[in-house]
């Protein structure tokens, strides 16, 4: 696994073949940190009785106060068995509901703010109170972070990596819950977004970001790749350089856990530089390191 230090030195190196400069990466890292700071701040304020809508509103307000004006998507919050998307049939069910948090309930905060033109998309899993089961799920996510990076560096087709992640989940005893996302994606591309004075959203997604995704899809369609990393044939191609928001999502009998963060893919020949996590100083990574140290 790349450590925080090597990641940042790698990021500062010039990358001729890839359009994102080190300044760009710094921008993306900053907004990702901001989003995780928001998640930790909001998670710290969650208490029994808080509803998903309130939690989503808290995230929105926290980020707006710090200068976020546009979104890849508006913040989501899922509580209880909704963290595992139990009985989700239509995408509207992803939107926050009036489900109230109870002691012992798992929760996930998922937000994608755009700050100064840079996009982040993060997922933060937690639990109100102690839960050995939830701890286990979080700990088991580490293997997925390693697997994803290793196989992207090996330039395996995204569809095969998807299947390997799913196989690992099944071996661990979990269900693959990112399959519930639109197109069953485990990841999607994110990019810089042009800042506008007015940035409306459509079904919770920022129109600027949707435009970027659509143009990527169009380019990809011509060139044989897709900005959506899915289990389907259109993802049967090697990793496309760019920034991918990767979100493996485990589900186990009404308890779900995920992380989401940005994986930088370049077309460098050096495997170390061909792909790396944008930032290794994130809550879930720190948690694993602390567990190992303990």
């Amino acid at each position, binding site marked *: 696994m790349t450590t925080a230090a090597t990641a940042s030195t790698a990021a500062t190196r010039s990358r001729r073949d890839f359009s994102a400069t080190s300044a760009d990466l710094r921008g993306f890292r900053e907004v990702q940190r901001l989003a995780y700071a928001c998640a930790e701040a909001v998670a710290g304020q969650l208490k029994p009785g808080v509803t998903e809508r309130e939690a989503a509103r808290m995230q929105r307000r926290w980020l707006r106060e710090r200068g976020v004006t546009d979104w890849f998507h508006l913040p989501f919050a899922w509580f209880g068995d909704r963290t595992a998307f139990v009985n989700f049939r239509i995408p509207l069910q992803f939107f926050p509901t009036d489900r109230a948090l109870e002691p012992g309930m798992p929760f996930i905060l998922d937000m994608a703010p755009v700050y100064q033109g840079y996009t982040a998309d993060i997922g933060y899993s937690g639990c109100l109170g102690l839960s050995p*089961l939830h701890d286990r799920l979080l700990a088991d996510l580490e293997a997925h972070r390693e697997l994803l990076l290793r196989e992207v560096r090996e330039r395996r087709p995204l569809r095969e990596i998807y*299947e390997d992640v799913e196989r690992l989940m*099944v071996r*661990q005893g979990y269900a693959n819950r990112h399959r519930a996302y639109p197109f069953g994606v485990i990841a999607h591309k994110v990019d810089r977004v042009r800042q506008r004075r007015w940035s409306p959203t459509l079904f919770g997604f920022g129109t600027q970001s949707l435009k970027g995704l659509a143009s990527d899809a169009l380019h990809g369609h011509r060139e044989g790749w897709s900005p959506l990393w899915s*289990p389907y044939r259109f993802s049967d191609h090697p990793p496309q350089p760019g920034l991918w928001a990767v979100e493996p999502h485990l589900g186990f*009998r009404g308890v779900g856990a995920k992380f989401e963060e940005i994986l930088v893919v370049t077309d460098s020949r050096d495997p170390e530089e061909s792909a790396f996590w944008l930032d290794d100083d994130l809550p879930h990574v720190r948690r694993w390191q602390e567990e190992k140290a303990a």
Partner: protein
Amino acid sequence: MSEAVGESGETSVSTALEGARERRIATGGIELSVAELGDPARPTVLLVHGYPDSKEVWSRVAPLLAERFHVVLYDVRGCGRSTAPQPLRGGYTLEKLTDDFLAVADAVSPDRPVHLVGHDWGSVQSWEFVTVPRTQGRIASFTSMSGPSLDHFGHWIKKRMTRPTPRRAAQLLNQAAKSWYVYMLHTPALPELAWKGPLGKRWPKILERVEKIPAGDYPTASLPTDAAHGAWLYRDNVRTRLRHPRTDAYAHCPVQLITPTGDAFLSERLYDELEQWVPQLTRRTLPAKHWVPRTRPDQLAAWIEEFVTAKDEGDPAKEVAARGRYADRFGGRLVLVTGAASGIGRATAFAFAEAGARVVVVDRDAEGAARTADMARLIGAGAAWAEAVDVADEAAMEKLAEKVAAEYGIVDVLVNNAGIGLSGSFLETTSEDWKKVLDVNLWGVIHGCRIFGRQMAERGQGGHIVNTASAAAYQPSKTLPAYSTSKAAVLMLSECLRAELAGQGIGVTAVCPGLVNTSITTTSHVAGVSPEEEKRRQSKAARLYGIRNYPPEKVADAILRAVVRNQAVVPVTPEARGSRALSRFAPRALRAIARIEPL
């Protein structure tokens, strides 16, 4: 307050209760015969018998409890070796029975509250004990089986009479029909004559035939007088209490309610609104008939032990944690699942774990089995063990059965789920391939049923066997000849075994899942093709099953439901149900489907 009279102490009471110490306690003009087992320093568990019984009804339960507790049993007034009140009329009111209970409790456990256990009328009177104020602080917990509170019963009837909906009326009529013997007992003199005459003589045979009670030292010789005197339990209490039920009959201690689902005298619906009377209620259900202390002693002892231990120590960590849908049915029961390192087996192990069962996880894949056991403990399993055994290996299965019986107990639910896939045309399938698939899919099931089924039958306390067959058992196809044959054999084996074991209270279910998204697609061998082609077909099948995406968890739910309802054949996915229907009503359509080249 009464004093213990005639501390004749250490004599044995009867052959049925070996090693019991008897003492006699005088109270309200009568003398009660009280038997004690176990260390008096331990928490006291007081067992109260029903009608027409004496304390010997507990003879199979009491010794099991005596290992952990101070067990006390007494003959209710007029039964067994206790003397009867004079006159009988008015001598059996619940108030007087409460006096008796307090006298016994004060004598055997003066400083600590007792844990009550009642069956039938023993439970009916115990409900009175736990709902009247004067016993407050004397009872630590109450386990009730087959005996409702007359006050709750009175309110139950009233509610259904005053606001009858079709469902409520049906419930009322159902219970009214089950209560036929109560009306008979209200006729004067006749019941006494019958009990002292022909009925008393034939009763043991009737119990054996109708209630499936194993013959032996029960009922005791005192049956005719027990039954004749006991008629006054009904005459002194039923009419008055049902007509004017108390409105303050709230339990002041935790209650564990054990409901036998096959009770011929009491409807399960009687306990529907019990939560309103009992703030701390734990429900248990048991597929058995009325006399559970005779037919299911092991299970009762385990549940009583668990409940009493939790309540006595007041340790919230020991409280029942399982919250699964069937926790009342599977809490604390021993479940063995084969092929539980992945797929349907693993999901089934988890579903039982969630219901609080103790789970034995069996698989060839030791690592996967350990993982299943690990996760099972996290979601509420009473305990979980992983065993690396190949079901096709008879000697290994024998050894496993011995180990399980010695260390964990007799299996209550056995799930023979281990199976492997094999596709390819018949002419390409070698005898080696056949052997492999039959060894696991058929012989594995045979070994499981034979070895664990025998243990279940020998214990004689019921159980359930689930065999995982397949929709391929009745859906012919040109691509799965060997697999389908093995599964058809499993289906028929299950049906035959069901007929054979029905008399012993052991249910057998064949589950036919259909297309379920598990790893069987990638581990299946394809006969007669190159390794590359095999790989291609495996991944194609895996994708197809992935798109169908029927989760193994739903099959696991179907398995638990099938055990609860004792269903014979359970097709699970819609396509499995569809082809089952076709196999019965339009077999030619199935034969046409069988010719399709799928991949």
